[in-house]
């Protein structure tokens, strides 16, 4: 194992935090949008450098017992040691994740400078404040040494997602989407916090290293209801990583600016759920039934989202469903028992999905529309953008030597080795669909007849440069994986099978959308029931709306009634009786002094009686 320097870990955390504090606290800085952007980008660059140094400089521990890779400080005091700690856990899982988060954040912030160039400066300052806060929150989550800190930053990341999706808060659809994202993920978080607290109640600690130790010694396995606890904790990942049925917020989250989608809803925030499962894997390994659930839900989500992507016409929505689908892949691998494959796909997907989203940003900027059916023929005008986008697409479709091929193969191998045959078939089918819908998008946008009107002027360097850089990183990553990557124990036929599936998907897309040998309408007619359901998103949005209206509003109306008539009623009755009693007692005050003397005399008489009774 390798342990990084905690000091560097703190530096990685501190830089975006400082940037956020500066931009947030100094209004003048925020109002001068460009300056705020520079501050934020600089902080992010510094954090990236620190993360890389931390990773490369990590020392391997070759001998002796495993050492605790975290450095913690006491936060909430308790008797017999602190109840909760904060700190950084810099191990082999956290370090590459830190590099991914800081790298993508840095590129996205640079890209945003050009993408949002006609945003008023105070608004721009607000954007960069949110970006810095998000980076800090995500890094805090990744580096968390225990469940409590992870949960705090989990929620903070959710808040940033809300703020960034609803960045253009004057748009009603954006505001609604932000609230929807927040609420749906909150549903999952209910389970998460319940699970964490139950785990603490059973073990007395939130700390990962301590919990891993308890798992090793068999103490954890003996806890009754551990499956329930781990399932509740998994629910948090269901919400955050958009697994079925809590996936409905991710497509709507595309209302936010495209760089935000690239950062949060492709590479970093949504992967927090996968990261959490990987981080807590020693605990999940003790509950194989929960792992099965994770695998099945993951595979099902992958297939479901892929079908919905095939019928979308908005390019960002296609990419959003694609993200949901790939998250399903990652969860399936983790559920099958191989969390390394899961994290491997997380890292590769983070890069090429961000590339695809940022490329989509360029496309949208050029065509001024999201609708793919109104685009076309872009490759002739912007060949290098097309090449970059194509690199991302090939990576996503799983064509060697691009990294997506290797990481997907790892996942398929893991699922097969875990014995989940049906899930494997679902994932294989999803591969075919993935290749299909991605190349459908490519053919519609870059080739064919030019339906739309492309902008005459060129693409800003910041945007284009970032896309090319990401494409380059993808290619390099693919080369590295070809020659040095860790290949799981996969049956020999697997790579050929996955290449065949991808090739079939590409061919189908080419035939339908490029050569138009097959009419799309006949294709959808052939798969009519699925096509019908997919276009209506399987009615899930309606289910949620109905639940909200009937259950939530109904319950709140009932509670409102109770509050108004019972709770307030009690108080009103009390005050009314006090008033009435006062009114009644008022008649004692006759204003006649002799009546008061009567009162005094009666009192004295009573005292006399009492004295008589108690006298010895």
């Amino acid at each position, binding site marked *: 194992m390798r342990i990084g320097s905690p000091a560097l870990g703190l530096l990685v955390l501190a830089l975006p935090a400082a940037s956020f504090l500066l931009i947030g606290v100094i209004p003048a800085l925020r109002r001068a949008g460009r300056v705020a952007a520079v501050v934020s980008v600089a902080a992010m660059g510094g954090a990236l450098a620190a993360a890389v140094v931390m990773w490369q400089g990590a020392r391997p521990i070759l001998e002796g017992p495993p050492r605790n890779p975290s450095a913690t400080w006491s936060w909430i005091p308790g008797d017999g040691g602190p109840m909760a700690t904060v700190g950084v856990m810099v191990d082999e899982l956290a370090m590459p994740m830190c590099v991914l988060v800081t790298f993508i954040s840095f590129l996205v912030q640079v890209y945003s400078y050009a993408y949002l160039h006609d945003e008023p400066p105070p608004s721009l300052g607000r954007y960069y404040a949110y970006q810095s806060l998000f980076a800090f929150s995500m890094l805090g989550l990744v580096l968390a040494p225990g469940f409590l800190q992870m949960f705090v930053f989990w929620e903070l990341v959710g808040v940033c997602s809300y703020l960034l999706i609803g960045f253009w808060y004057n748009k009603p659809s954006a505001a609604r989407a932000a609230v929807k994202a927040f609420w749906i993920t909150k549903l999952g978080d209910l389970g998460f916090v319940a699970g964490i607290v139950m785990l603490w109640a059973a073990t007395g600690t939130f700390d990962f290293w301590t919990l891993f130790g308890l798992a090793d010694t068999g103490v954890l396995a003996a806890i009754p209801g551990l499956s329930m606890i781990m399932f509740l904790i998994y629910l948090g990942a269901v919400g955050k990583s958009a697994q079925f049925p809590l996936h409905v917020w991710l497509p709507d989250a595309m209302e936010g600016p495209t760089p935000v989608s690239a950062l949060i809803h492709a590479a970093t925030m949504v992967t927090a759920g996968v990261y959490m499962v990987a981080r807590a894997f020693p605990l999940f390994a003790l509950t194989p039934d929960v792992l099965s659930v994770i695998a099945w839900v993951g595979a099902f989500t992958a297939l479901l989202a892929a079908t919905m992507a095939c019928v979308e016409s908005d390019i960002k929505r296609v990419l959003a469903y694609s993200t949901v689908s790939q998250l399903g892949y990652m969860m399936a691998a983790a559920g099958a028992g191989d969390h390394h494959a899961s994290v491997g796909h997380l890292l590769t997907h983070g890069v090429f999905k961000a590339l695809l989203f940022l490329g989509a940003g360029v496309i949208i900027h050029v065509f001024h529309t999201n609708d793919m059916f109104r685009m076309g023929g872009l490759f002739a005008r912007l060949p290098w953008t097309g090449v970059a986008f194509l690199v991302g697409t090939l990576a996503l479709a799983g064509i060697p030597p691009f990294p997506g091929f290797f990481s997907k193969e790892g996942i398929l191998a893991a699922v097969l080795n875990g014995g989940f045959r049906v899930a494997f078939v679902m994932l294989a089918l999803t591969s075919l669909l993935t290749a299909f819908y991605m190349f459908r998008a490519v053919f519609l946008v870059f080739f064919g007849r030019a339906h739309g009107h492309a902008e005459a002027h060129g693409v800003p360097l910041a945007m284009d440069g970032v896309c090319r850089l990401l494409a380059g990183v993808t290619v390099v990553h693919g080369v590295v994986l070809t020659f040095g990557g860790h290949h799981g124990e996969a049956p020999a036929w697997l790579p050929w099978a996955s290449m065949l599936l991808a090739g079939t998907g590409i061919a189908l897309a080419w035939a339908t959308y490029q050569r138009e040998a097959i009419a799309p309408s006949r294709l959808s007619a052939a798969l009519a029931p699925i096509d019908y359901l997919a276009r209506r998103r399987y009615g899930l949005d309606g289910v949620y709306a109905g639940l909200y209206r009937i259950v939530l509003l109904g319950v709140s109306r009932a509670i409102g009634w109770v509050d108004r008539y019972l709770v307030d009623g009690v108080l009103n009755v009390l005050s009314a009786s006090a008033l009435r009693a006062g009114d009644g007692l*008022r*008649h*004692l*005050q*006759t*204003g*006649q*002094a*002799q009546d008061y*003397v*009567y009162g005094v*005399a009666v009192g004295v008489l009573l005292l006399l009686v009492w004295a008589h009774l108690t006298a010895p």
Partner: protein
Amino acid sequence: MPLPAYLILAALVFAIGLFGVLTRRNAVGILLGIELMLNAVNINLVAFARFRADIGGLIFTMLTIAITVAEVAVGLAIVIAIFRVRRTIEADHLDLLRG
């Protein structure tokens, strides 16, 4: 006479004075009742001073008499002032403190 005789006498006068305070309609009549009650208290004090050979009782009585005289003076002054304003000193009509 033994001590209880004086004490019972004082109690009787006190009760009669209380009756006067409670039943008289005229404000001056009420003050007369108060006079009787204070008188009874004085008898009590002097009796105890005699039977306990304690001069404090006599001192107390003197103080009480002095205070009573002052109180009567000021009280009647108030009654006269009320009469000037309200043209009546019947206790039934003086109910400004009515709630």
